[in-house]
Protein backbone atom coordinates (compact mmCIF):
# COMPACT_ATOMS: atom_id res chain seq x y z
CA UNK A 1 0.00 0.00 0.00
CA UNK A 2 1.40 3.46 -0.84
CA UNK A 3 2.65 5.39 2.16
CA UNK A 4 0.17 8.24 1.70
CA UNK A 5 -2.74 5.80 1.71
CA UNK A 6 -1.42 3.98 4.75
CA UNK A 7 -1.11 7.26 6.59
CA UNK A 8 -4.61 8.25 5.57
CA UNK A 9 -5.97 4.93 6.76
CA UNK A 10 -4.00 5.18 9.99
CA UNK A 11 -5.37 8.62 10.69
CA UNK A 12 -8.87 7.34 9.85
CA UNK A 13 -8.58 4.80 12.67
CA UNK A 14 -7.77 7.74 14.88
CA UNK A 15 -10.45 10.10 13.67
CA UNK A 16 -13.25 7.55 13.58
CA UNK A 17 -12.71 6.75 17.24
CA UNK A 18 -12.38 3.01 16.65
CA UNK A 19 -11.91 1.41 20.03
CA UNK A 20 -8.82 -0.59 21.00
CA UNK A 21 -10.65 -3.92 20.76
CA UNK A 22 -11.75 -3.22 17.18
CA UNK A 23 -8.17 -2.32 16.26
CA UNK A 24 -6.96 -5.56 17.79
CA UNK A 25 -9.49 -7.54 15.75
CA UNK A 26 -8.42 -5.62 12.63
CA UNK A 27 -4.83 -6.60 13.43
CA UNK A 28 -5.84 -10.26 13.71
CA UNK A 29 -7.56 -9.97 10.34
CA UNK A 30 -4.33 -8.86 8.70
CA UNK A 31 -4.65 -5.07 8.82
CA UNK A 32 -1.07 -3.80 8.56
CA UNK A 33 -1.73 -0.39 10.11
CA UNK A 34 -3.64 -1.65 13.12
CA UNK A 35 -0.52 -2.69 15.05
CA UNK A 36 1.10 0.72 14.75
CA UNK A 37 -2.10 2.55 15.66
CA UNK A 38 -2.73 0.32 18.65
CA UNK A 39 0.89 0.51 19.83
CA UNK A 40 0.83 4.30 19.56
CA UNK A 41 -2.23 4.34 21.75
CA UNK A 42 -1.38 1.83 24.47
CA UNK A 43 2.40 1.47 24.61
CA UNK A 44 3.07 4.78 26.45
CA UNK A 45 0.80 3.72 29.29
CA UNK A 46 2.15 0.16 29.32
CA UNK A 47 5.72 1.47 29.56
CA UNK A 48 4.65 4.04 32.17
CA UNK A 49 3.06 1.42 34.40
CA UNK A 50 6.11 -0.85 34.15
CA UNK A 51 8.51 2.04 34.81
CA UNK A 52 6.61 3.24 37.87
CA UNK A 53 6.52 -0.25 39.34
CA UNK A 54 10.10 -1.28 38.52
CA UNK A 55 12.02 2.02 38.40
CA UNK A 56 14.43 0.43 35.94
CA UNK A 57 14.33 1.47 32.32
CA UNK A 58 15.70 -1.72 30.79
CA UNK A 59 13.47 -3.98 32.83
CA UNK A 60 10.43 -1.77 32.17
CA UNK A 61 11.04 -1.86 28.41
CA UNK A 62 11.38 -5.64 28.49
CA UNK A 63 8.09 -5.95 30.37
CA UNK A 64 6.41 -3.55 27.94
CA UNK A 65 7.60 -5.57 24.95
CA UNK A 66 6.55 -8.82 26.61
CA UNK A 67 3.07 -7.47 27.44
CA UNK A 68 2.59 -6.24 23.87
CA UNK A 69 3.77 -9.60 22.50
CA UNK A 70 1.09 -11.28 24.60
CA UNK A 71 -1.47 -8.84 23.21
CA UNK A 72 -0.51 -9.64 19.60
CA UNK A 73 -0.74 -13.35 20.33
CA UNK A 74 -4.15 -13.15 21.96
CA UNK A 75 -5.53 -11.02 19.11
CA UNK A 76 -6.94 -13.92 17.08
CA UNK A 77 -9.07 -15.05 20.04
CA UNK A 78 -10.14 -11.58 21.11
CA UNK A 79 -13.90 -11.22 21.53
CA UNK A 80 -14.97 -7.64 21.12
CA UNK A 81 -17.07 -6.29 23.94
CA UNK A 82 -16.12 -9.02 26.42
CA UNK A 83 -12.99 -7.39 27.76
CA UNK A 84 -11.31 -4.03 27.42
CA UNK A 85 -7.79 -3.97 26.02
CA UNK A 86 -6.75 -1.44 28.68
CA UNK A 87 -8.01 -3.61 31.55
CA UNK A 88 -6.31 -6.67 30.07
CA UNK A 89 -3.01 -4.79 29.71
CA UNK A 90 -3.11 -3.36 33.24
CA UNK A 91 -3.46 -6.93 34.52
CA UNK A 92 -0.71 -8.39 32.34
CA UNK A 93 1.78 -5.59 33.06
CA UNK A 94 1.04 -5.73 36.81
CA UNK A 95 1.63 -9.50 36.87
CA UNK A 96 4.84 -9.30 34.83
CA UNK A 97 6.17 -6.55 37.13
CA UNK A 98 5.28 -8.50 40.27
CA UNK A 99 7.27 -11.43 38.86
CA UNK A 100 10.27 -9.15 38.35
CA UNK A 101 9.91 -7.60 41.81
CA UNK A 102 9.78 -11.04 43.39
CA UNK A 103 13.05 -11.97 41.69
CA UNK A 104 14.57 -8.68 42.78
CA UNK A 105 13.45 -9.29 46.36
CA UNK A 106 15.18 -12.67 46.37
CA UNK A 107 18.30 -11.15 44.86
CA UNK A 108 18.35 -8.25 47.35
CA UNK A 109 17.89 -10.71 50.20
CA UNK A 110 21.02 -12.50 49.01
CA UNK A 111 23.13 -9.40 48.42
CA UNK A 112 21.73 -7.06 51.09
CA UNK A 113 23.01 -4.28 48.86
CA UNK A 114 20.82 -1.91 46.88
CA UNK A 115 22.15 -1.46 43.36
CA UNK A 116 22.43 2.07 42.04
CA UNK A 117 19.49 2.93 39.80
CA UNK A 118 21.71 3.82 36.88
CA UNK A 119 25.44 3.82 36.19
CA UNK A 120 25.31 7.06 34.22
CA UNK A 121 26.40 10.19 36.05
CA UNK A 122 23.56 12.62 36.60
CA UNK A 123 22.83 15.88 38.36
CA UNK A 124 22.25 15.79 42.12
CA UNK A 125 18.49 16.41 42.00
CA UNK A 126 17.96 13.78 39.33
CA UNK A 127 20.09 11.33 41.30
CA UNK A 128 17.97 11.90 44.36
CA UNK A 129 14.75 11.39 42.37
CA UNK A 130 16.15 8.19 40.89
CA UNK A 131 17.17 6.94 44.33
CA UNK A 132 13.73 7.74 45.73
CA UNK A 133 11.92 5.99 42.88
CA UNK A 134 14.16 2.97 43.23
CA UNK A 135 13.52 2.91 46.98
CA UNK A 136 9.77 3.01 46.36
CA UNK A 137 10.03 0.16 43.86
CA UNK A 138 12.25 -1.90 46.20
CA UNK A 139 9.79 -1.31 49.05
CA UNK A 140 6.96 -2.46 46.77
CA UNK A 141 8.96 -5.65 46.21
CA UNK A 142 8.86 -6.35 49.96
CA UNK A 143 5.05 -6.45 50.04
CA UNK A 144 2.93 -9.53 49.48
CA UNK A 145 2.12 -9.74 45.73
CA UNK A 146 -1.56 -8.81 45.92
CA UNK A 147 -0.89 -5.83 48.19
CA UNK A 148 1.89 -4.59 45.91
CA UNK A 149 -0.35 -4.94 42.87
CA UNK A 150 -3.30 -3.12 44.47
CA UNK A 151 -1.15 -0.30 45.88
CA UNK A 152 0.60 0.20 42.54
CA UNK A 153 -2.67 0.33 40.58
CA UNK A 154 -4.21 2.73 43.10
CA UNK A 155 -1.34 5.08 43.85
CA UNK A 156 1.01 4.81 40.88
CA UNK A 157 -1.62 4.44 38.14
CA UNK A 158 -4.28 6.51 39.91
CA UNK A 159 -7.09 4.02 39.16
CA UNK A 160 -10.36 3.82 41.07
CA UNK A 161 -11.16 0.91 43.38
CA UNK A 162 -13.85 -0.51 41.03
CA UNK A 163 -11.35 -0.42 38.13
CA UNK A 164 -8.76 -2.22 40.25
CA UNK A 165 -11.37 -4.76 41.34
CA UNK A 166 -12.03 -5.56 37.69
CA UNK A 167 -8.33 -5.78 36.80
CA UNK A 168 -7.52 -8.03 39.76
CA UNK A 169 -10.79 -9.92 39.53
CA UNK A 170 -11.65 -9.38 43.21
CA UNK A 171 -14.29 -7.41 45.13
CA UNK A 172 -14.06 -3.66 45.75
CA UNK A 173 -13.95 -4.41 49.47
CA UNK A 174 -10.87 -6.61 48.97
CA UNK A 175 -9.21 -3.82 46.99
CA UNK A 176 -9.84 -1.38 49.85
CA UNK A 177 -8.35 -3.79 52.35
CA UNK A 178 -5.31 -4.63 50.20
CA UNK A 179 -4.49 -0.99 49.43
CA UNK A 180 -4.89 0.08 53.07
CA UNK A 181 -2.64 -2.68 54.40
CA UNK A 182 -0.18 -2.30 51.54
CA UNK A 183 0.15 1.43 51.96
CA UNK A 184 0.74 1.11 55.71
CA UNK A 185 3.42 -1.54 55.18
CA UNK A 186 5.06 0.56 52.48
CA UNK A 187 5.15 3.62 54.74
CA UNK A 188 6.77 1.56 57.51
CA UNK A 189 9.46 0.19 55.19
CA UNK A 190 10.27 3.63 53.80
CA UNK A 191 10.26 5.32 57.21
CA UNK A 192 13.60 3.69 57.88
CA UNK A 193 15.12 5.28 54.79
CA UNK A 194 13.81 8.82 55.20
CA UNK A 195 17.13 10.52 55.94
CA UNK A 196 18.95 8.57 53.25
CA UNK A 197 16.34 9.67 50.71
CA UNK A 198 16.63 13.33 51.67
CA UNK A 199 13.50 13.70 53.77
CA UNK A 200 14.20 15.62 56.96
CA UNK A 201 12.47 14.81 60.19
CA UNK A 202 11.31 18.36 60.87
Amino acid at each position, binding site marked *: MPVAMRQMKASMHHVCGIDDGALLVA*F*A*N*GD*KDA*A*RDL*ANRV*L*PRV*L*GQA*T*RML*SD*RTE*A*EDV*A*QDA*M*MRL*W*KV*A*SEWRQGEAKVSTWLYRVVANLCIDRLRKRRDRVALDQVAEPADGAPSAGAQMQ*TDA*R*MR*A*LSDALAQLPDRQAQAVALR*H*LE*GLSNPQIAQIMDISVRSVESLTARG*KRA*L*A*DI*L*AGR*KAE*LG*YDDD
Partner: protein
Amino acid sequence: MMTDPKDDVLDDLFAQARATPPQVGADLMGRVLADADQTQAQAGPQAAPIARQGYLVRIMESLGGWSAVGGLTAATLIGVWIGAAPPEVLDDVAAGLSGEVLSLTLFDQTSFYFEEGLADG
Protein backbone atom coordinates in the same frame (compact mmCIF):
# COMPACT_ATOMS: atom_id res chain seq x y z
CA MET B 1 -8.41 12.34 60.82
CA MET B 2 -4.85 12.32 62.00
CA THR B 3 -2.25 12.33 59.26
CA ASP B 4 0.78 10.20 59.70
CA PRO B 5 4.04 11.95 58.69
CA LYS B 6 5.13 8.62 57.20
CA ASP B 7 2.24 8.97 54.75
CA ASP B 8 3.50 12.38 53.66
CA VAL B 9 6.76 10.84 52.49
CA LEU B 10 4.89 8.07 50.74
CA ASP B 11 2.44 10.44 49.08
CA ASP B 12 5.36 12.56 47.91
CA LEU B 13 7.03 9.48 46.39
CA PHE B 14 3.81 8.44 44.65
CA ALA B 15 3.40 11.95 43.26
CA GLN B 16 6.98 11.98 41.96
CA ALA B 17 6.52 8.59 40.33
CA ARG B 18 3.43 9.82 38.51
CA ALA B 19 4.96 13.18 37.58
CA THR B 20 7.33 12.07 34.84
CA PRO B 21 5.89 9.45 32.51
CA PRO B 22 8.63 7.88 30.33
CA GLN B 23 8.79 8.48 26.60
CA VAL B 24 8.51 5.49 24.29
CA GLY B 25 11.80 5.37 22.42
CA ALA B 26 12.08 4.48 18.74
CA ASP B 27 13.97 1.34 19.66
CA LEU B 28 11.20 -0.06 21.87
CA MET B 29 8.51 0.88 19.33
CA GLY B 30 10.57 -0.89 16.65
CA ARG B 31 10.86 -4.06 18.72
CA VAL B 32 7.12 -4.06 19.49
CA LEU B 33 6.14 -3.56 15.85
CA ALA B 34 8.58 -6.23 14.70
CA ASP B 35 6.89 -8.66 17.10
CA ALA B 36 3.51 -7.60 15.70
CA ASP B 37 4.67 -8.18 12.11
CA GLN B 38 6.06 -11.58 13.00
CA THR B 39 2.87 -12.62 14.79
CA GLN B 40 0.77 -11.42 11.88
CA ALA B 41 2.95 -13.26 9.38
CA GLN B 42 2.70 -16.51 11.35
CA ALA B 43 -1.08 -16.19 11.66
CA GLY B 44 -1.36 -14.96 8.06
CA PRO B 45 -2.87 -17.99 6.28
CA GLN B 46 -5.70 -18.34 8.81
CA ALA B 47 -6.51 -14.69 8.95
CA ALA B 48 -8.84 -14.50 5.96
CA PRO B 49 -10.80 -11.29 5.66
CA ILE B 50 -14.21 -11.70 7.31
CA ALA B 51 -16.30 -10.83 4.24
CA ARG B 52 -14.75 -13.67 2.20
CA GLN B 53 -16.04 -16.56 4.32
CA GLY B 54 -19.44 -14.93 4.85
CA TYR B 55 -22.48 -16.78 3.60
CA LEU B 56 -21.20 -20.35 3.14
CA VAL B 57 -19.88 -20.53 6.68
CA ARG B 58 -23.05 -18.97 8.06
CA ILE B 59 -25.27 -21.47 6.23
CA MET B 60 -23.07 -24.32 7.35
CA GLU B 61 -23.23 -23.16 10.94
CA SER B 62 -27.00 -22.60 10.81
CA LEU B 63 -27.31 -26.26 9.84
CA GLY B 64 -25.12 -27.40 12.72
CA GLY B 65 -21.58 -27.44 11.31
CA TRP B 66 -19.71 -29.88 9.05
CA SER B 67 -20.82 -33.13 10.66
CA ALA B 68 -24.49 -32.21 10.54
CA VAL B 69 -24.19 -31.09 6.94
CA GLY B 70 -22.46 -34.38 6.12
CA GLY B 71 -25.40 -36.30 7.59
CA LEU B 72 -27.84 -34.08 5.78
CA THR B 73 -26.07 -34.68 2.48
CA ALA B 74 -26.22 -38.46 3.01
CA ALA B 75 -29.92 -38.28 3.87
CA THR B 76 -30.56 -36.15 0.82
CA LEU B 77 -28.71 -38.56 -1.48
CA ILE B 78 -30.64 -41.51 -0.06
CA GLY B 79 -33.84 -39.57 -0.55
CA VAL B 80 -32.94 -38.80 -4.13
CA TRP B 81 -31.99 -42.43 -4.73
CA ILE B 82 -35.25 -43.71 -3.23
CA GLY B 83 -37.17 -41.13 -5.22
CA ALA B 84 -35.42 -41.95 -8.46
CA ALA B 85 -35.55 -45.75 -8.17
CA PRO B 86 -38.21 -46.78 -5.64
CA PRO B 87 -38.58 -50.51 -5.14
CA GLU B 88 -42.15 -51.46 -6.06
CA VAL B 89 -42.90 -52.70 -2.53
CA LEU B 90 -41.92 -49.38 -0.97
CA ASP B 91 -43.77 -47.20 -3.45
CA ASP B 92 -46.09 -45.53 -0.96
CA VAL B 93 -43.47 -45.14 1.81
CA ALA B 94 -40.83 -43.86 -0.59
CA ALA B 95 -43.19 -41.29 -2.00
CA GLY B 96 -43.81 -39.89 1.47
CA LEU B 97 -40.17 -40.12 2.54
CA SER B 98 -38.65 -38.61 -0.57
CA GLY B 99 -41.21 -35.86 -0.49
CA GLU B 100 -40.19 -34.94 3.02
CA VAL B 101 -36.46 -35.12 2.43
CA LEU B 102 -36.69 -33.24 -0.85
CA SER B 103 -38.74 -30.47 0.71
CA LEU B 104 -36.01 -29.94 3.33
CA THR B 105 -33.41 -29.86 0.58
CA LEU B 106 -35.38 -27.31 -1.40
CA PHE B 107 -35.70 -25.14 1.68
CA ASP B 108 -31.93 -25.15 2.20
CA GLN B 109 -31.31 -24.40 -1.44
CA THR B 110 -33.67 -21.47 -1.21
CA SER B 111 -31.92 -19.95 1.80
CA PHE B 112 -28.58 -20.61 0.11
CA TYR B 113 -29.59 -18.60 -2.97
CA PHE B 114 -31.19 -15.97 -0.84
CA GLU B 115 -27.96 -15.44 1.10
CA GLU B 116 -25.93 -15.45 -2.06
CA GLY B 117 -28.20 -12.84 -3.58
CA LEU B 118 -27.74 -10.67 -0.54
CA ALA B 119 -23.98 -11.08 -0.60
CA ASP B 120 -23.82 -10.15 -4.26
CA GLY B 121 -26.27 -7.29 -4.04
